[in-house]
């Protein structure tokens, strides 16, 4: 029925089905044959069909990671001069085309030819458990240079005629900690790409080469048209929002991601000017300034998919996005900045964008989800002296309250893909005792629609030199924001021996060396609330109380619902208390810590900081930022931006390498 030369638009779904089936077959092949648990359990992999120009035009919805549905392979593809039929190419270098975004991610692709003509590429990526470098698993916030983060492979040919490049394999073998795993996963990637190539050939046979050539741009255009249609329902305007990582490095100061979202017709501009300079830690995002880089547009994809679940996801979906990513900032770090833990700032940038979109679509989007999920690992020794190293699961926060429902408990929003590990499996495999695993009462931000409660895990270790790592720790200081009168969620926490005299607040530390008998308690951040809590029906508050999502104190304090110790509702006292709640509905409720912080670090001061730092050499920015933060600690009475410029002048006076003065903007 399909004609050979043009595509009947009504039949485009048939081709979409075939393309998606191809990437699904690739994904299942990868999952089935991979070795590492990153692929099998965490599903940290992707499979794609990619145009000759590098645009991803198909990926499997719901299999693998959610981040790369619109990945632009172009810059890396173009670093290969000449493609050979039957050959496979790969890269893991974040600074060669910005396709791989940290060294553990190995992206591989294979060209598909038809009668000597390049038709498209099949591509996939896998997060390798370890690629060498300074620390096991290659990732730590403390690293400051990409060279510490493991072996990096620039785009190159690695496989042809059924044979690997043996030299490359020997180099990998020499540089990583568990070479059999990397080797196994690499083989799985080869199998995946060969499956993909065979499937594309079947499609060419079934529909003809002209249709397969034409359908690629048709599918991209289709996604673009759908996305533009959705964007056109978003009110035009300029929406500014900023969110923070608690620390920009070990024990550091906050890291701000600021974005101005401009909606105009069917176009979206995301201007990240005002975001922090690139950091002396591994939280940086290597985007190369690509205005549609997949790491930057995830939140856009999530928002548009939420507004219309039928949206086709490919590079066309974000064609109407233009992101401004100033060079030398966390949003566009330059080499040799470390990037291993970029996922933490990626999450913050998603939350910043969600805050901007929430202003545009208050009736369709939720308050802030918990947004930060700590990934817990334990290294310890069992009774026989055997070393055990195991992931014991994520501890995440609840979803944000939404215009119609409470937030999801324990996870949600932009962290919906995480799976946990059962308590029973953890206790069998890892010599720890889990004392408590569940939800934290009162942690969800109060609201007409309550934020989802956060998770809690408490466990005890028994051997000396046990090490607990918690990657992606965040939100211990800056809470998940509530909207339209809804309150902020409870912040996350991390304690050693929380209930005795040895109690130690671990804050955002991501590596803890433990003694035998130490108890670790970690909680995630609660989701923000939606709407004025006084509007939450008393019956819903009582249900939450009976369910244990809130306490009796929480009911009284957060909702003005007074219940006696015996569980009886005090109607009169409740009416009185609720009346006092008033009808005021703040647009955003950020929580005490952020309010206090922003009393010092106002928008005006941040503007001044941005103005100063952008004029400095990139290598100086992180240093100067920290010195200015040391100098500026008072709340703004008068002066405002002046204090920042003064602080800079004092620093410049000590360092002749710096420009002596920086003119205030405008």
């Amino acid at each position: 029925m399909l004609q050979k030369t043009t595509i009947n638009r009504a039949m485009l779904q048939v081709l979409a089905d075939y393309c998606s089936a191809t990437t699904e077959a690739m994904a299942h092949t990868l999952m089935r044959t991979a070795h590492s648990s990153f692929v099998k359990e965490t599903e940290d992999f992707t499979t794609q069909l990619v145009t000759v120009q590098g645009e991803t035009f198909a990926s499997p919805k719901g299999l693998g990671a959610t981040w790369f549905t619109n990945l632009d392979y172009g810059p890396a593809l173009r670093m290969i001069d000449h493609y050979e039929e039957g050959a496979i190419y790969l890269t893991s270098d974040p600074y060669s085309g910005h396709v791989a975004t940290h060294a553990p991610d190995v992206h591989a692709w294979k060209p598909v030819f038809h009668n000597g003509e390049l038709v498209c590429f099949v591509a996939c990526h896998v997060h390798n458990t370890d690629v060498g470098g300074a620390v096991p698993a290659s990732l730590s916030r403390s690293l400051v240079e990409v060279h510490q983060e493991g072996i990096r492979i620039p785009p190159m040919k690695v496989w042809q005629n059924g044979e690997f490049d043996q030299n490359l394999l020997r180099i990998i073998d020499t540089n990583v900690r568990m070479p059999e795993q990397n080797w196994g996963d690499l083989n799985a990637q080869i199998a995946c790409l060969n499956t993909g190539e065979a499937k594309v050939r079947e499609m060419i046979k079934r529909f003809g080469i002209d249709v397969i050539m034409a359908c690629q741009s048709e599918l991209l255009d289709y996604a673009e048209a759908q996305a533009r249609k959705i964007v056109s329902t978003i009110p035009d305007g300029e929406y500014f929002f900023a969110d923070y990582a608690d620390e920009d490095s070990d024990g550091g100061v906050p890291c701000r991601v600021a974005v101005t979202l401009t909606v105009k017709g069917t176009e979206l501009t995301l201007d990240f000017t005002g975001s922090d300079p690139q950091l002396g830690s591994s939280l940086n995002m290597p985007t190369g300034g690509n205005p549609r880089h997949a790491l930057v547009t995830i939140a856009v994809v999530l928002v548009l998919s939420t507004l219309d679940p039928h949206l086709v996801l490919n590079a066309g979906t974000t064609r109407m996005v233009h992101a401004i990513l100033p060079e030398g900032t966390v949003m566009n770090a330059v080499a040799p900045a470390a990037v291993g833990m970029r996922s933490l700032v990626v999450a913050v940038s998603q939350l910043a964008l969600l805050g901007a979109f929430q202003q545009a679509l208050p009736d369709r989007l939720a308050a802030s989800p918990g947004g930060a999920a700590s990934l817990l690992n334990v290294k310890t020794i069992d009774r026989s002296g055997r070393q055990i190293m195991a992931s014991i699961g994520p501890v995440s926060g609840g979803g944000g309250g939404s215009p119609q429902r409470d937030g999801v408990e324990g996870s949600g929003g932009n962290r919906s893909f995480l799976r946990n590990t059962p308590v029973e499996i953890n206790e069998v495999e890892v010599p720890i005792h889990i004392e408590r695993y569940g939800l934290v009462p009162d942690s969800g931000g109060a609201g007409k629609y309550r934020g989802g409660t956060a998770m809690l895990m408490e466990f005890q270790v028994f051997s000396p030199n046990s090490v607990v790592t918690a990657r992606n720790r965040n939100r211990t200081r800056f809470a998940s924001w509530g909207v339209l009168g809804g309150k902020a969620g409870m912040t996350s926490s991390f304690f050693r021996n929380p209930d005795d005299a040895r109690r130690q607040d671990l804050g955002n530390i991501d590596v803890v060396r433990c003694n035998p008998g130490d108890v670790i308690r970690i909680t995630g951040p609660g989701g923000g609330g939606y709407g004025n809590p006084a509007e939450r029906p008393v019956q819903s508050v009582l249900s939450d109380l009976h369910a244990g999502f809130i306490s009796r104190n929480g009911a009284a304090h957060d909702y003005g619902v007074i219940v006696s110790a015996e569980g009886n509702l005090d109607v009169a006292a409740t009416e009185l208390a609720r009346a006092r709640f008033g009808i005021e509905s703040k647009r955003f409720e950020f929580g005490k810590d952020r309010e206090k912080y922003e009393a010092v670090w106002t928008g005006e001061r941040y503007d001044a900081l941005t103005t100063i730092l952008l004029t400095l050499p990139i290598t100086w920015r992180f240093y100067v930022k920290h010195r200015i933060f040391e100098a500026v600690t008072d709340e703004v009475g008068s002066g405002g931006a002046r204090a920042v410029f003064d602080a800079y002048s004092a620093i410049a006076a000590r360092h002749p390498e710096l420009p002596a003065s920086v003119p205030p903007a405008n």
Partner: protein
Amino acid sequence: MGQRIGVDIGGSFTDFAILDEDTRTLRALKVFSRPDEPGAEIAAGIRLAGERYGISPDQVTYFTHGTTVGVNTVIQRKGVKLALFTTENFSDVLELGRLKLPAMFDLLSRRPDPLVTRDMVWGLSERLRADGSVMRGLDPESVAIATRAALAAGAEGIVIALLHAYRNAEHELEAKRLVAGLAPGIPVFTSAEVWPIIREYERTTTAVIGGYVQPRIAHYLGSLQNALKGLGVPAEARLTKSNGGVMSAEQGKTDCVQMILSGTASGVIGAGFVAKACELRECMSLDVGGTSADVALIVDGEPQYGMGEYIGEHQIHVPSISVTSIGEGGGSVAWVDEYGVLKIGPESAGSTPGPACYGRGGQKPTITDAFAVCGIIGQADLGYNAVKVDVEAARRAVATLTGRTGQTIEETAEAIIKVAVSGMYAKITGLVTRFGVDPRTTAMMPFGGAGPMMGCLVAEEMSMPETVVPTTPGVLAALGGLVADLKNDFIRTVFVDLAKSEIPKIQQVFTELKAAGENWLRDDQGYDGEGQVTYSADMRYRGQSHDIETVLPGAAVWAGDVAALEKAFHDAHEKVYGHAQREAPVQMVNLRLVMAGRTPKPELPHIDTGSGTPIPLKEIRCWISGRWIPVQLYARKDLLAGQSFDGPAVIAQDDTTTFVPEHHTVRVDAFGHLRIKKESSDAAEDNN
């Protein structure tokens, strides 16, 4: 002279398959289902068997049936109000599930609401260690408090699911005894008794689903037993299980998790039986109903098994025939999006109002309507004269889309069919790669009301070499119950390294499981033939978190042959994942035993033999590949073994319509199954 009866109770029709024990002949019947009065359809069927075949109720020596009452109770959330008792500090197990949300790209995605709300969950003061030893004894006072609170809150049943109960059930049993003392008569279910597997969420939710449906199922099975007794049927009622076996209705009343997928499993067992008779090595069954299509893989006549099968949004973690449901059936609605792209579903007209062409009030164009417009269905009576196809209504419904597609009604109808087929292609492709199956050596077996009209088209897209349409696609599920063996699964979590030192423990557990199996087969099921025992274990490499169920050679188990047991696992790993680490240490998580009692199997009847090409009923015109062409219409009952004919063709029978596309050839085999193959197109392909 005994008669064995298998019944499948579907939404609209109830099918009977009747096996004569002496002659081994098989007969079929169909009556309307009576959801309003369970048992009435059985009575009607047995009466009809008397009228038609002279079978009296007292001749019925064996009676088994498949039912969807369990699935429906969960999907419609019509179960009972339950309380859940967990280990203290772990009471959020149902709220958290396995954390992951169903729709990863939807910021507002939610987990399905638990069947027990959080306010109905209480923690008990107790704690076991991972090895099953007691860390904190069970505090009876905590049980008393929880029980009183649960009763006050209106609980109609109590589920007790404590940490590590798969290892040591004693705390659960003690709590159950205490509850029985405090609240005599209230049903109590413990997670280890329901299905003792490691992983607290999976074990808990499985027990909860069982408890949730139990009173409904017990009531239903009780009425069925009474109905049979009232009719004078001496046979004890049995029912098909999710695991492809059969058990007594009496066991089903309490062991509900074993029968929830009874209805779905029956069809696949029947398909497996036919696949075996047809000597199909690998076969994919495609059961297309009104709102969905169920796909299952059958290897050497055996359905494939899995854990975690879906019941609506919920998963149940007992061994079940693995069936993947695709949200696309004959009633799925076609629509055109804003960009002009034609889409199918997820909206479905179901059986009410149904496709527009059924004339029951449906207005929207469905897949079935597209086939009607193309002239493929509606040329003969459907469904025992129950449904007349109104082609004009179908055309009117499809015409609502032509403005958007810019095509004629016929072109749009054919486009709907193509999109429907490609949707199934996409889902089935994912499935075959997950199973590691090569479609080019796999046959397609379509059944269900809408299966045979789509089967060849899907097989062609999948490059499957053959489509086999069973003689009576509608009766396959009834046949499935009839041919299923008595079968029960037994499991014990052991969590040991596979090593010489652990062999005595492994043998001890298998001895106990075997004794339990024998007891079940002899005492509970009253079976006196020889029991068939299969040993297996969920095994893994140490450090991995996913296990593979590995069948173990019985001889190696009893000889304590560690090397042979390891080899069984390495081989299984290699088969599933394409590689094995033959030097790596191996762990056994669960030991399993299947006890089966073989039941007599019917000989599928041979039909009369003919030759040449059958005489068509008439010539009709169908819209195929963009034009009206003449197509031969055959009556299924006129076809004789050995006859063959070419597509395009339409074959009508009481319960379904088979469509044979162009360039396909049909051969009628000795049993009357249609064996449809595509003409080889290798020569053409090589030129591409």
